[in-house]
């Protein structure tokens, strides 16, 4: 992948490595991960639990805590004022300013993301006040406004509610409000709908799409749910065992999946309209990420595994236009 930060770029991640130093050994959670996010698009990071998708997004703003460590990587970000910075090289205070203001997060579980002892309003107001110099009254009014934007009924009352007084869907909307209140350039949504009912899921996703259309925001959507991806994303990165194995535009990926993992992933989602004899699954389990062996990480489960797959890790190459894949089936050797 090129290292050119174009006008269309909002975020560019190259060769990101995150390791965890645990009792059991060194876990290579994220290995040489590279991806791009452009203006006003929704990019999906798809993978199973343990694929490294969450850690990659946390690493972007250096939210990794011990025993985790960001070993290396380049993360270029275009700030609101137009300047391009390497987030890995900024001071702690600089990064703090960017978080919650220019890059915002939505976490998976809204119940645990909110401090049970403080009201929703307090959460939003503090997010505003720690980034902008406004008086409290204005901040409170802004809080009510942003709650309204996320379709929370009776925002004037809700602003004084505690997290436990709200339903799951409303909690997630509150979390979204907090993340959006400072109009971030980049929103990282980590499994925003996984813990919610299916009906609420649809509402939240529509809300996200709506907000992207209205503002100039880009979204990184982390999920394991292909249905959500199909509904919402413009481009997709498929991750497995800490690596990116395939990336393409949404239509292209679903029509022409190249990587065996992606193919099996798509096949394992049953089509409700077709008569199914057997549920497909991918045999085997995700490998341990402690001291991974050489070679392609998927080869133990891959039906097309070759000799070279055991020996060397395939590079990510552009197999078709804007369609990248890391697999020896396509790379020249």
């Amino acid at each position, binding site marked *: 992948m090129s290292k050119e930060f174009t006008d269309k770029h909002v975020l560019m991640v190259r060769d990101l490595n995150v390791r965890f130093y645990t009792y059991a050994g060194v876990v290579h959670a994220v290995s040489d991960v590279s991806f791009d996010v452009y203006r006003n698009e929704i990019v999906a990071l798809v993978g199973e639990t343990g694929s490294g998708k969450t850690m990659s997004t946390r690493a972007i703003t250096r939210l990794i805590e011990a025993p985790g460590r960001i070993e290396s990587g380049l993360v270029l970000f275009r700030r609101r004022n137009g300047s391009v910075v390497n987030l890995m090289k900024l001071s702690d205070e600089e990064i*703090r300013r960017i*978080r919650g203001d220019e890059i915002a*997060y939505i*976490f998976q579980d809204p119940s645990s993301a909110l*401090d049970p*002892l403080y009201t929703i309003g307090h959460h939003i107001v503090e*997010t505003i006040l*720690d*980034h902008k110099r406004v008086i409290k009254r204005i901040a409170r009014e802004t809080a009510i406004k942003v709650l309204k934007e996320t379709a929370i009924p009776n925002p004037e009352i809700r602003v004084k509610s505690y997290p436990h007084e709200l339903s799951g869907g409303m909690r997630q909307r509150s979390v979204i409000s907090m993340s959006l209140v400072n109009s971030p350039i980049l929103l990282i949504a980590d499994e925003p709908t996984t813990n919610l009912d299916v009906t609420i899921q649809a509402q939240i996703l529509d809300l996200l799409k709506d907000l992207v259309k209205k503002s100039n925001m880009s979204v990184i959507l982390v999920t394991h749910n292909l249905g959500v991806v199909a509904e919402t994303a413009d481009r997709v990165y498929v991750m497995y065992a800490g690596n990116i194995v395939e990336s393409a535009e949404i239509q292209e990926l679903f029509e022409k999946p190249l990587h065996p993992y992606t193919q099996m992933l798509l096949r394992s989602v049953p089509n409700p309209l077709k008569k199914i004899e057997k549920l497909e699954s991918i045999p085997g389990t995700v490998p341990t990420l402690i001291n991974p062996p050489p070679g392609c990480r998927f080869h133990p489960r891959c039906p097309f595994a070759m000799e070279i797959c055991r020996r060397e890790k395939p590079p990510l190459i552009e197999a078709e236009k804007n369609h990248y894949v890391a697999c020896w089936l396509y790379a020249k050797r």
Partner: protein
Amino acid sequence: MGFGSFIARRIITFIPTIIGVLFLTYIIAYAVPTDPVRAWVSEKLTDPKLIERIREEYKFNAPWYEQFAFFVTSIFTGSLRDPVRHTNVFDEIKTRFPVTVELALVSFIFLVAISIPLGILAALYKDSWIDFLVRILAFFGSSMPSFVLYYFMILIFFSWLRATYLAGIPMISLQCMDKLNNIATTYPVIGGVIASIGYVPLFGGAMCGEWDVVSETLKRLYVPALSLALLNGGFIARIVRNSFLDALGSEYILFAKARGLRRFNVWRHALKNTMVPVTTILGLSFGGLLSGAVIAETVFNIPGIGRYMYESIMRLNFPALIASVLLVALIYVIINLIVDILYAYIDPRIRY
């Protein structure tokens, strides 16, 4: 639902508890097979007429429910008499309880001053020498027999350093006492509260400007207070440490950081959450201290209510015992109530 109804409900539940406590105390007293009256008059003459009169006064010849009723009514009308000291039980308690209160307060201040900073430091410097030290303090504090520690503290601070003394306790002057009584009578409710606070020599001395009372009291009490704090401080510091670590590691803290909150505000979230279990523990500790540290008062020769209870038991002085046990139990229940209310104030989830 709300805060108010929560408080109301909690208050209602403690009435049966108090009644139960009263009854329990009475049962204990009544269960004595020996004749307490003989114990009461043992030092004086054994004139059988006197013994009979005392029996009549305390209704020993009446059936148990009449006796119980007698005790209850005389407690509530403040007319119960201490048969050994020949004074009104309430006068005795009025001089002794404030002493226990000031001991409890000074001990509590030491306790908080030791345990909270140590606990937070132990959390921040996890597994360092500070953490280790706090752990050791906790183990020794909970394994050390209190009376042994007291003896050694006396050895160090009294015998060697001569930095404290072990007899009597400073009291506010009679003029000050009169001033307080005046306030109590002139301003009904508020005056009563202020006067009660003033009965505690530490505060009364400050109120009347009798600063020597304040300084002497501190000089008298800091050794037992420090001992009590050392015994409990380690344990509480550990709780603070674990609670703080739990809070720091939680999702909402990570989310707070993800929202780019300033470090101070991130800490505020963690600290408030830490305070939830810590307040409970501290409140219960204070309640325990108020119940009269019997052993500390005995060893350090402090004339507080714990000592009074102990002496009453030794002399089988049941009127005194019942009154003071009742007071102590009442205080304990009130403290529990306050702790519950504080807990609900801090943690909105509890208010239901």
